């Protein structure tokens, strides 16, 4: 077994301390009894109570969930179609433009995406509401989904699909029964990515949200712009825990899946 040299041990420790200490401080101070966020005044869960009594936050959280569920689902369907087209579509008119439009939103500054979508919605006379946020989120997150899915499609053995077609299934059946089950993990992680991106987005949502469709990040931003708020610490703690549980579970599940596969392979031999 390799041993870590002191240099590597130090750089890993410092690096992960840098990544995690700010979040740990946030979590610890969400249980602070005092109003001042930087002075410890005893353990208390009162800010969680305040948070759940704050209807504006609850409304915003509900809006955020609606937007995230809808936009990530649309983005997954569109992104998978786009990935399939790019990897399998062969040559078609405007292919370069199409792949450019798929990659550009990944690196586009959010302020530009947000501004341009808002100007579009105003130009076509679409009132700003949850629907406009869903449209905006679908557009940028479908590109992420398509990158995730196409990286799986590239490594996929095409002869399996061809076998299904030879055995008499229609192209759609071949996709549903052969391709989809194989690319499913990538489609699911694409959905999760789209969901998280939507939950997290402040800038694009600020441009495209109407007064009655405030989302959680917009609410958080206006609350913390001027200072630190213990309620937001409590909210952040909840959000960080959800993500942590999700990431840890999926990584444990994938580890177990790999171990199971290795065991089956050994038994097969």
């Amino acid at each position, binding site marked *: 077994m390799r041993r*870590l040299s002191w240099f590597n041990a130090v750089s890993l420790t410092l690096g992960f301390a840098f990544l995690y200490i700010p979040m740990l401080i*946030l979590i610890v101070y969400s249980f602070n009894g005092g109003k001042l966020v930087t002075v410890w005044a005893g353990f208390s869960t009162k800010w969680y109570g305040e948070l759940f009594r704050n209807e504006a936050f609850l409304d915003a959280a509900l809006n955020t969930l609606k937007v995230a569920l809808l936009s990530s689902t649309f983005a997954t369907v569109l992104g998978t*179609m786009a990935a399939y087209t790019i990897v399998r579509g062969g040559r078609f008119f*405007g292919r370069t433009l199409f792949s450019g439009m798929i990659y550009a*939103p990944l690196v586009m500054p959010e302020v530009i995406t947000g501004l341009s979508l808002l100007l*579009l919605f105003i130009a076509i006379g679409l009132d700003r509401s949850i629907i406009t946020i869903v449209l905006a989120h*679908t557009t940028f997150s479908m590109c992420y989904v398509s990158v995730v899915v196409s990286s799986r499609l590239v490594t996929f053995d095409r002869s399996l699909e061809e076998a299904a077609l030879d055995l008499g299934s229609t192209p759609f059946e071949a996709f549903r029964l052969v391709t989809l089950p194989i690319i499913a993990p990538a489609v699911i992680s694409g959905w999760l990515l789209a969901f998280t991106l939507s939950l*997290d987005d402040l800038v694009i949502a600020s441009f495209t949200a109407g007064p009655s469709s405030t989302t959680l990040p917009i609410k*958080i931003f206006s609350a913390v712009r001027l200072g630190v708020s213990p309620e937001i610490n409590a909210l*952040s703690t909840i959000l960080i825990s959800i993500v942590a549980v999700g990431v840890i579970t999926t990584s444990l599940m994938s580890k177990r899946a790999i171990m199971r596969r290795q065991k089956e392979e050994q038994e097969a031999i």
Partner: protein
Amino acid sequence: MRRFGLISVPYLWLLALFLVPFLIVLKISLSDIELAIPPYTPTLDLSRGWEGFTDWASQLDLENFWFLAEDSLYWKAYLSSLKIAIVSTIMTLIVGYPIAYGMTRAPDEWRPTLMMLVILPFWTSFLIRVYAWKAILSQEGLLNQLLMGIGVIGEPLTILNTNTAVYIGIVYTYLPFMVLPIYAALERLDESLLEAAEDLGCSRFTAFWLVTFPMSKQGIIAGSFLVFIPAMGEFVIPALLGGSKTLMIGKVLWEEFFSNRDWPVASAVAVILLLLLIIPIVLFQRNEEKQREAER
């Protein structure tokens, strides 16, 4: 026919919600303020044929761009964004490289856990991670409490609402984007090359400098673009951690739009920002393609 449907749905979606909005931004950047707030006056009336087009085109001008060129605020904001983005990309590289390198040197059974620890912040809300620094960096914040407690400083340091806080924020939030590509590049490195270098008399450091570092170049380039490009247009970090003196173009665009309600100038700011970013974006895509070909 079915294939046509498969291609056309995402294609039309992106045309309508990605390309067309840009054309609108471009058009508004060329309009006057009274005309650009709805109802738009310079509408393109194609029913009048060529004359309709020339009428429309004659109403467009570069006035907003002259305005940007004349007002030093915008110049300074572009230059300062460029400086902040470059410096923070270099800082992220200096912080991120040892982490990525340490991960590849760690025992094999640690790697999935280390990988998870790098990815976890990536899934955690960006806004919350930026916000976390507010309580640490403020005047009576935890960093000042700590430093004064151990007697390093007598007076609290002013870090929050300065460019220093913006640098810390960018390095912190974009660190996973730097670590992951470098780690991917280093992981592919064949260790026997290092052994060969050491057998041939290289010191550890020379072997690193002559073998490992050049082999991780692709990862460094990819990571740097992934930090530099979004940092250029960053809004949240300067808005939460920067002060009134922090000039970043993303913030200027936001204020031009939401506070000054000057849509044509906001659009012109966006057009110039995009032009500045096209070069790094194209270089980034080239690098990605090169890497993909190398993997084949």
